[in-house]
């Protein structure tokens, strides 16, 4: 099915059931090239499940997900990565026992560019610089602060040169100073013209970064539009704060 918009990533009628529990129900949205789309909603609304569906951790029970028109819903994570989708995790996942540089290099070696040797090392260093961690390449990851750990993970994702970036609550758990740095980093990603889907709770970030927002509640989409439109929508306010506040 061809779409009129230049959508890079297409989620069409996706439903995900876990033994009777419906986590995601008939979700549809599209992400156009170079767009930054925010996926927001109260806790338990199925946002991370949605991320897991896109990155291949889960397979949809119904519906499909496509990248440039190609169905990716049934592919395992390693194939989806090679297709060009990279993601960060809600709780940072770094590789213990490997140095910072090796952690970043991991993203470059097995992706669709398959770098190796000096080329991979060099590229990993460049990614570390991009996220502001130059000079840390041989630090053991146990000594890193939380924001630095997140930066390493981001560098690893960038090292895979992904077409679409999935950021799963990347700004969560940061103190005010770290948050500023983090938002600035994502700003830079935006300026580079990257295509990003971000699940977030930090509303300031959503407002300043996203072109469009998709709001989820109890597994379904309840609103879609610009951040201003969506954040003043009655249904959205009701979902977050309850009936009395709408």
């Amino acid at each position: 099915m061809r779409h009129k918009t230049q959508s890079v990533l297409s989620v069409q009628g996706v439903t995900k059931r876990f033994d009777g529990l419906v986590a995601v129900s008939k979700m549809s949205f599209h992400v156009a090239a170079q767009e930054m789309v925010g996926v927001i909603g109260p806790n338990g609304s199925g946002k991370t499940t949605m991320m897991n569906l896109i990155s291949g951790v889960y397979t949809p029970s119904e519906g499909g997900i496509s990248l440039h028109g190609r169905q990716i819903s049934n592919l395992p994570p390693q194939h989806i990565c090679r297709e060009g989708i990279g993601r960060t995790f809600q709780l940072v996942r770094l590789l213990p026992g490997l140095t910072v540089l090796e952690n970043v290099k991991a993203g470059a070696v097995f992706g669709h560019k398959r770098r190796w040797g000096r080329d991979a090392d060099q590229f990993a260093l460049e990614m570390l610089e991009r996220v502001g961690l130059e000079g840390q390449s041989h630090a053991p990851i146990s000594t890193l602060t939380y924001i630095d750990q997140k930066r390493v993970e981001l560098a690893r994702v960038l090292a895979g040169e992904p077409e679409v970036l999935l950021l799963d609550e990347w700004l969560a758990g940061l103190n005010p100073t770290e948050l500023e740095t983090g938002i600035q980093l994502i700003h830079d990603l935006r300026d580079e013209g990257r295509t990003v889907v971000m699940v977030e709770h930090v509303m300031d970030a959503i407002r300043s970064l996203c072109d469009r927002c998709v709001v989820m509640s109890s597994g379904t989409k309840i609103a879609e539009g610009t951040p201003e439109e969506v954040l003043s929508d009655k249904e959205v306010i009701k979902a977050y704060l309850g009936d009395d506040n709408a």
Partner: protein
Amino acid sequence: MQIIDILISGLLLSGTYALVAMGLNLQYGVARIMNLANGEVLVFGSLAAFWLYTSSQISPLLTILIVIPISFIGNLLIYNLLLAPLVRRSKSRGALEVDSILATFGMSFILIGIMTSIEGGFFAYKYLSEPIQILGSTTSLSRLVAFLIATLIALVLYLWLNKTRSGVAVRAVSVSTEAAGLVGINVPRLSAVAFAIGGAVTAVGGALISTFITLDASIGVVFTLKALIIVIMGGVGEIRGAIIAAIILGIVETTVATLVDPGLTLAAAYFIFVLILLFRPQGLFGRRNT
């Protein structure tokens, strides 16, 4: 008729298998300990029954009453002294599994060593071995009694897990240790108790099985394997699943032993295991995780 013989025999055997599998379910599903020494605990129960019967004429059924508290305390000590430190030091569930596998593996040798010094050879005895008729098929009374007692204990376990507060707490821990902790359940203490009960149940299974099977100190691993296969086939933590899986294994094993060769029962269990791995690794009733 041979089919009836096989079915009855297999069903009676599965009663004891189901009991042992329930013990392992408590240890793995709740306490998260992959206990490779499970079979040795079973043999310990058998040895106790054998020893008390041959030396003091004490009926294995009475021995069960002695075995329960002793193995409960023994397993509790094992958990608190040897396994709890591993739980505390493990950084991830995967690391805990590797550590508990190695630790219980080592424990199994220690148990084998202790048992070999008590009774180095094979041990068997005759208790309630009079033949009886069930639906036209001949079997021994001991097998029927073992089946009935196993069923009784399984029923008690089932009622405890589903109708009492402590039982519900145990089931909560098997679903999620974090969530259980958040609602005020003392997860470490409950894990220890679950592990101890699991061990006690397994030892009882051993005492029961010794009334109709010849054992020796080194046969534990075969029972560990079969219990593990039943637990996985039924779905970790699933009681109903363990019962059905035990019945399947009991009947398949008896079929192979009767129609092909009694030395191939382990191979029969493996055959089932491979099918599970290929087609339904989460087990019959298990939930699929990622």
